[in-house]
């Protein structure tokens, strides 16, 4: 066990956990931030995607000991009022079916647009390939990203 000081969604947190604990479980079990989802535990599905200093990472394989001073953003902190351009576009295109993967999809999409404000279809496909949607909402995800790109 070790103590870690974290900056998550602009707030400071302190946790006392095994240094190998993935950030996902620190968020979900210790800090009650359950927006990032568990889907596979091996960085294959993207449901757990968060931002670490604006880069989209799979929190299920990121040990808490590697976070250091970097800031963490989760879906809960992506915007104050759920009005990030990507979130708004997700609602406009009514993307979700079961909704379980969508927090991860949104976090990947937001990071993509942060790095590339006007991605091509091909760039969207490549960037989003790490996020599985079992309900198959990929067509809407692509359209929503294009809308968000136009509005941000």
């Amino acid at each position: 066990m070790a103590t870690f000081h974290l900056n998550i969604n602009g707030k400071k947190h302190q946790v006392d956990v095994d240094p190998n604990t993935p950030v996902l479980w620190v968020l979900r079990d210790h800090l009650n931030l359950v927006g990032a989802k568990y889907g596979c535990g091996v960085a294959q599905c993207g449901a757990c995607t968060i931002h670490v200093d604006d880069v989209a990472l799979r929190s299920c394989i990121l040990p808490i000991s590697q976070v250091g001073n970097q800031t963490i953003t989760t879906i809960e902190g992506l915007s104050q009022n759920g009005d990030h351009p990507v979130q708004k576009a997700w609602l406009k295109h009514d993307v979700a079916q079961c909704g379980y993967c969508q927090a991860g999809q949104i976090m990947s999409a937001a990071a993509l647009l942060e790095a590339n404000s006007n991605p091509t279809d091909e760039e969207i496909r490549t960037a989003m390939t790490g996020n599985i949607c079992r309900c198959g909402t990929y067509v809407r995800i692509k359209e929503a990203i294009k809308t968000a790109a136009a509005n941000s």
Partner: protein
Amino acid sequence: MTLIKTKYNRRSFLKVSAAAGGGMLIGFNWLTSCTSPVEEGIPMPNEWFEINGYIKIGNTGLVTIYSPNPEIGQNVMTSMPMIVAEELDVKWDHVVVEQGSLDEDAFKNRQFAGGSLSIMRGWDVLRMAGATGRRMLLEAAAKEWGVALSDLTVSEGIIKEVNGDRSIGYGAIASKAVGIEVPEEVELKDPKDFTLIGSFQKNVEGPKIVTGKPLFGLDFKREGMLLAMIEHPPAFGMTVKDFNRDEIVAVNGVRDAFTIDISMDDPGFGNENAFPQMIAIVGDSTWQLMQAKKALKANWEIESELENSEMHAQRLKRDIDQGEVQETRKDGNPEAAFTKAAKVIERTYTAPFQAHNTLEPMNFFAHVTTDKAELIGPTQTPNSLRESASKLLGIPEENISVDITRIGGGFGRRLYVHYGLEAAAISKKTGAPIKLIYTREDDMTHGIYRPAYRSTYKAGLDENNNLIAYSVKGVGFREGAIFPNRFPAGAVDHYAATKLKSETNISTGAWRAPRSHFEAGAQQAFLDEVAEAAGKDTIELQLELLDRAKNNPVGEKYEYEADRYAGVLKLVKEKANWGAEVPGVHRGFAAYFCHNSYVAQVLDLVMKDGLPVVKKVWCAVDCGIVVNREGAINIIQGGVVDGIGHAMYSELKFENGVSTHKNFNTYQLVRHNQSPEEIEVFFVENDISPTGLGEPGLPPAVGALANALYKATGQRYYHQPFAIANQDQNAFDISRTG
């Protein structure tokens, strides 16, 4: 004018009372026919017979609709309340939808159990409840003002005098409407007057989903709750002997470890079990439990044969001739007709086991005390869980509550209740509230799988290339993927269909559009090959057959309506501009009827770097009245992606009883870069009561893909997954690549 009764055998379908905090509360039985989560042949779950839906008309005019339907992503939490709101005549933005629980009141209305409600479908019940509310509110206003009902009109929750100035909102009159006697029958709207039904409405939980609110079972927390994980035997055919308990309870954060057994003498509906005995570990945090699982050293005992995929292929090959026959149909004399035919085509199709892989793994909260149990989590069949939990725990059903969370994917997997029972068994033994969580590996290797199938189709053409004989026989574990009375039954003079079963000790069950997803792909690929042999356009061949079925049907009744079937073929043909050839674009067509809905699809693909890319899929759908157009399009699109993905990429193999695929690094699910680039959906507009949408979009996609792949590669696709399997007709049962 359509009238609907509110009573049956003098018993009311409705219960009206004053709402807490003012206003009116209408309780009714909220059926689930629009969702069709249960496949044909499985008994109707008990929960369909209870009062479990409520409409609250508050004194502010805000209408709250409590929808008890499990929401697995099919969007019923939006579409079904829309039906109520349409007949109630309220503005959609004055409606709030909440997930209702299985209310305790349900037990006071057990007299509803039985067949009485089966005469009505969910569509009618929801309409009746809304229309009754509207009528009672109108009557209350008429009484208040001393006028006749015919002097009043209502629109968007405001009641007005036809020849006067007075008007009143639902909120202001709701408390008085409680005193009005429930009318014996009420008038329903003419579908032509629908304003909300058929419109595009967003998912009511969208804002919560995009902000990461705790909606799902995996997100559920209770003060003092412990976490639990299970370790099931590594192979089908094995059971637990013992394990290193002392070492496990010494792992940091572990509170206890023990074996549980959820087997019971008389398992009810949905009580399929992959492994009734397993090891459970209880502790403080998920990560610690995952470490404890790694430290497990268990001894397992072999109880029955450890099976593998080659064995499965051999059994299916044997049992397509020797298996137990489950269902047949025969018209004319197919054997003689095949002998006389100028051309005979025979093809065999296969598909492997598949997992459901809901993205939210199985999980459940349980708090079991000596005489009570509280169960909360993602289940499609809460009442089945309660029934089985009662047997397992020895606690009467009325002391067991089951609440449903939002469900991170169903696809049939959460019809089965074992994980809720496991949670209950763990809580009982621990004496504490616990939440059971499966790892992905637990989830994928502890399945109630889509079984492997094998079907052989045979067609006979006469010298004029008319289809004179058609036969199909199909075998699967538990059930063959054959529907003897579906198309082309009724359309061919000499017809035979035989459904057979084979045996396995691997647990199998319903998987989105059970059996239909395989039958559609195989049948539609076969008919495409037959059309080619006959020198006919594939759509024209099927239209000819449908014409025959309609005008001069062969044999006993068949399941589909030939007109509606032909309708979707013609619609997709027109919308996709079928027949127009674009260089480099390869087109496939397929259609299918299941869950009372008709879907036809045209799929365009191109080859890029040697791999197929699906450019666009056109879908023509006849599901009767479309309730929520937005949600309907979304679910059809999802079905197309699901169908393409599983036919193309997914398979589960077994070696020595062990699933060789354990996570998404080896089990391939369709990803963004493999998804169609565009999917356009068209509906046949009619006034027929709505039918299933969650499943019918999937099956034709398999056939349309196979047929487009053939155009692109010159190779027919018989064996799933298309991207991996050896397509040789003769080689599939011996060796598989990949």
